[in-house]
Every structure is written in C-alpha cells, then in structure tokens.
C-alpha cells in the first residue's frame, strides 16, 4: 500500500462537488474532504453512510426515562412513602403526574448529553487533541480533497487538474 495522497485545493464548493463526482465516477478512492463549512449534499456525493446518531439518542432517551422512573419509584413509593401534602404515594401510577416533569427532563438530559458525548467519541474530538488539518486555508476559504494513490500518481493528478483544482500537492498520508 502506498502512503501517499494527492491533495487538490478548490476555492468554491460547487467546483468541489463536481470534482467529487468526477473522482467517484473514475473509481478513485477519496480519503477525505476538508471544508470550512458544511457543504450540502457532499456526504451523498461521496457515498458516505447515513449517520445513526439519532438512533443512539432515542435509546439514550429511553435510558433516561427508565432512570427517572426507577429512581422516583424507589425514593417516593418504595423506600419512604410519606404523605406529603396529601399526594397519593400508594403506587407509582397514582402519583405519576407529579413525576412527569422529572421524567421528561431526564429523558431529554440523557438523550442530549449522551448523544453529544457519542458524537465526540465517534469523531475523536477532545480538548488538547492535535488538529488534523493538512492545510490551514481549509478552515477559512479553501476546500481540500485527498485522493489515495496506488502507483498512478500522474493519472490522478491529471484527472484532478481537469476538475478545476487551484493547486495539487503530493503528501504523505497521516
């Protein structure tokens, strides 16, 4: 396996989208695309699988709901069923309306926070992480596409030049 990639820089997202489609059509593997902002439809053009983070959030929400129900059932009904202001603490269902605000909030809390943490873990983001940016301009106004090379450097470079790249570099894969 080669460790080299060709990096093509663009300064327009429409040109980038066309370039991605051209490269995909020529059956080259796109390693990565770096953009300063989300480009609508880029994931589809690259053929990336849809995210499953919404499914995880739903399950985290169910977890939060279970935590809330278990907690309040234990504390308010089983452990010490006091009469507090005449609220019926004989069974969970009888006093349930009073627990709904907490059930709701914990569902949202678990769904939101665990989903965000899942996102950080899956996209490998944390404080003091070393930035993986091949070219500083990609955070401002340039788009960069990395294409893997397998002893066909010239062919890939020629193809990328046709797509309207501003600059083409050969770099070590990292």
């Amino acid at each position, binding site marked *: 396996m080669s460790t080299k990639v060709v990096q093509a820089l663009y300064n327009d997202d429409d040109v980038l989208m066309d370039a991605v489609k051209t490269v995909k059509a020529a059956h080259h593997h796109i390693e990565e695309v770096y953009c300063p902002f989300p480009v609508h439809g880029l994931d589809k053009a690259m053929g990336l699988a849809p995210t499953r983070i919404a499914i995880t959030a739903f399950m985290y929400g169910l977890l939060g709901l279970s935590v809330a129900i278990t907690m309040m059932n234990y504390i308010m009904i089983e452990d010490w069923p006091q009469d507090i202001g*005449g609220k019926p603490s004989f069974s969970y269902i009888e006093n349930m*309306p*009073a627990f709904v605000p907490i059930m709701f909030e914990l569902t949202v809390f678990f769904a939101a926070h665990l989903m965000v943490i899942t996102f950080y873990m899956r996209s490998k983001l944390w404080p003091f992480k070393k930035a993986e940016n091949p070219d500083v301009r990609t955070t401002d106004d340039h788009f960069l596409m990395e294409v893997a090379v397998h002893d066909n450097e010239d062919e890939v470079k020629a193809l990328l030049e046709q797509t309207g790249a501003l600059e083409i570099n050969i770099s070590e894969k990292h």
Partner: protein
Amino acid sequence: MYTFSNRLRMASFILMIVGVLGIGYGFLAAPSTVEEAKAMVADAHHGGGHGEEAGHDAPAHGNENAEESHGEKKSHGEDDAHGGAESHGDEHGEHLLTQLKNKPWAAVYVAAFFFMMLSLGVLAFYAIQRAAQAGWSPLLFRVMEGITAYLLPGAVIVFILLLLSGFHLNHLFVWMDPEVVAHDKLLQGKASYLNVPFFLIRAAIYIAGWVTYRHFSRKFSIAQDSASDNSNFKKNFRISAGFLVFYLVSESMMSWDWIMSVEPHWFSTLFGWYVFASMFVSGITVIAMITIYLKSKGYLEQVNDSHIHDLAKFMFAISIFWTYLWFSQFMLIWYANIPEEVTYFVARFQDYKLPFLGMLVMNFAFPILILMNSDYKRMNWFVVMAGIVILLGHYIDVFNMIMPGTVGDQWFIGVPEIGSILFFLGLFIYVVFNALTKAPLIAKRNPFIEESKHFHY
C-alpha cells in the same frame, strides 16, 4: 383542474344519507318521559334492547364501561325506591331524562364542531404559511383553500345548533335555562357574559371574521394566477397577518363560549390554547391526507416526499404540543386539587376512563412512536395511518370535552354518535372536493411557487 370522481361523490352522498338515518334514529330513540328514560337504563342493564343494538359499532370495552355505569344508575334507582323518598326519586329521573334527551343533540354538536374545527385549523395553518412567506407550502395552498371551503357551511351548522339551544330546543348549555340560573348564584354572576343574545352575537362575529378572511384570501389567491404584478400576493400577506391576530382572540373566546360553557361552573385559563392545538393538529392531518389522496390520483405530481415529510413533521410536533397543553391543564388541576376546578377531571376519570386515557394513547403515544423516524414520515401509508388515528383521537378529545357536561355517565359511542360522524364526514368530503374542482390545483403566479416545486428536504 381537478374533477370530482363520481365514486367519491356517491360515497359522500351515501355517508350523508346513512348519517341522517343514524341521527334520526338517535332522536327517535331518545325518551320523552321519565318512565321511558328509567326503562331504557334498566333495559341496557339487562343487556337487551337499546344498549345491545348500539353496541355493534363500539369497542367491547366501551360497552362494558357503559353497562357498568348503567348498572350503577340502576342501583341508585333501587336505593331511592327503598328509601321511599318520592321527590328525590323524581329528581333523579328528571336528571336522567335530560341526559338521555341531550344524547342525540350532543352527538350532532360534537361531530359538527369537530368538522368545523378541521377547516378552521387548516385556515389558521394557511394564514401562518402566508404570513410567514413559507417557501415549501404554496404548492399545497389550493388544497388548503379547498378544505377551508367547508368553514362557511360547517360554522353555520354549528351556529344553527347554538341558536336552537338558545331557543331551548335542547339542554346542551345549562346556563341557557332560566330555571337553573334562578337557583344558581354562580351562573347569575356570569350572566353578563353568558346570556343568549350576547352569546349568539359573539358567535356571529367569530364566524363572520373567519369566513370573511377565507373569502378574500381565496379571491386574491385566484386573482394572483392571472395578475401582472404581485399586488394580490401582498394583499394576501397583509390580511393573513391581520387575520392571525383576530383568529387568536376569536378562537380563544370561541372555545370558552362553545365548549367551556357546557360546564359553566368550571374554568381554565389555557383552554383556548388547548382547543387550538387540537384543531391545528387535526387540520394539518387533513391537509396531509387529502394531499396524499390527490397525489395518488395523479393530480399533484409536483408534490414530492419532502412536502409530505414536512406535513408529517407538523403532525408530529403539534401532537406533542397538544399533549403538552393537555398535561399542563390536567397536572396543574390534579396537583392543586381545588374542588371547584377538579370536578371537571373527576367526572371524566370516573365515567370516561377509556376515552379519556385512550385519547392520550391515540393523540400522543401513537404519533410520537410512529412519526419519530424520518424515513417513516416520507411513506404515504404511514402518514395516512397515523393521520387516521390522530383524527379519531381528536374526535374523542372533543367528545370528552362536550359529553360529560351534557350526557354525563349516559355516554355511549352508538348509532347517533357514529351517524353524526358519517353525516358530517360525507358533507365535508362533498364540500371540500367540490371546492377543489373550482380552481387549478397549482397556483400559477405565486412568487414562491417555483421554490415550492423544487422543495427538497
């Protein structure tokens, strides 16, 4: 242009005829004397006659529930007889008679209000889309205008029912009975608001306001098709913004007048919002279902999955909004448990447990689980299935708001109730699809129509 298919027209006529027969049966079967009323209740208790006959269309639970409550009534009757308190027994019989006489009236009123509420909800949604200058929905404007065509006949029918109540032909509104008011300090205190002439004048003002907006909005919308500039579009924008202000006030007052005053001893501050949420979500559901129907017949080819997806998102979100208001109203009253407020829910919990809790499943649990997935929101049969459940759920919602105050524990979803639904459903289908044939289904020169045609989510 849309052509009203003969089969659908026939279906709407059949629904209306069957409905009228059902309503007529309801009025004929209502008792006219105390003895008849008592006999009917006793019959139902023994599992014969009326109760059994009406039971065919209702779920088994409803039947059980109804029989239970009939049974209770029966035992009360026996107690009275044993006690030998003749006057007390009569009072009980009178009460029962009023409830049973109210039954066909309340059945018609609930269905009339429900279908009027659908088109009023659509009108509010339509005005919001115009005032917000939404880019996705102009493709659906003609569908919405078709649905709001039912507003005039529907609201007039409700008005006639209110007028008949005002003439004491029924006993839906307790405060309209001078006998009752004479002995009720609380109703006397509310008489400056709750009196028949003012009540009818208010109703006429609400209806006039809604229908006027609908008329002009439709007129400008059609005029825009052949206009050379956007002046009609701008006029429509302005009147929509104005209408929304009027609508919020009139809808809130309408809900106090037409629904909350069925139980004039009770009051709730967020009731107007609650009724609004109910009509809004059912209105959006009707838009989605009629759009899907027209698309399946090939009339709305440019409507794509994304439009259905957006409508389904609204169905999902407003269902949750409805639940939020339902729960806020219920929980605040349950928590504080102030006797003058809590009787409202006590009556519902004792006599209406299945519809009261069932509607929560239909209006909240079902849509939230079915419409959460973004892929499901793009599948027509999923949206239609969720829509049917939501509409039935909101019918039961209106049923739960009206029935306890009018028929009490004598409720039943039987011939008069189902007959009324069928009649108004037939009328609704006839009026709406007739209105859809009157103008092209795609607005031509709407400034946002191109965006709407290419809407993609």
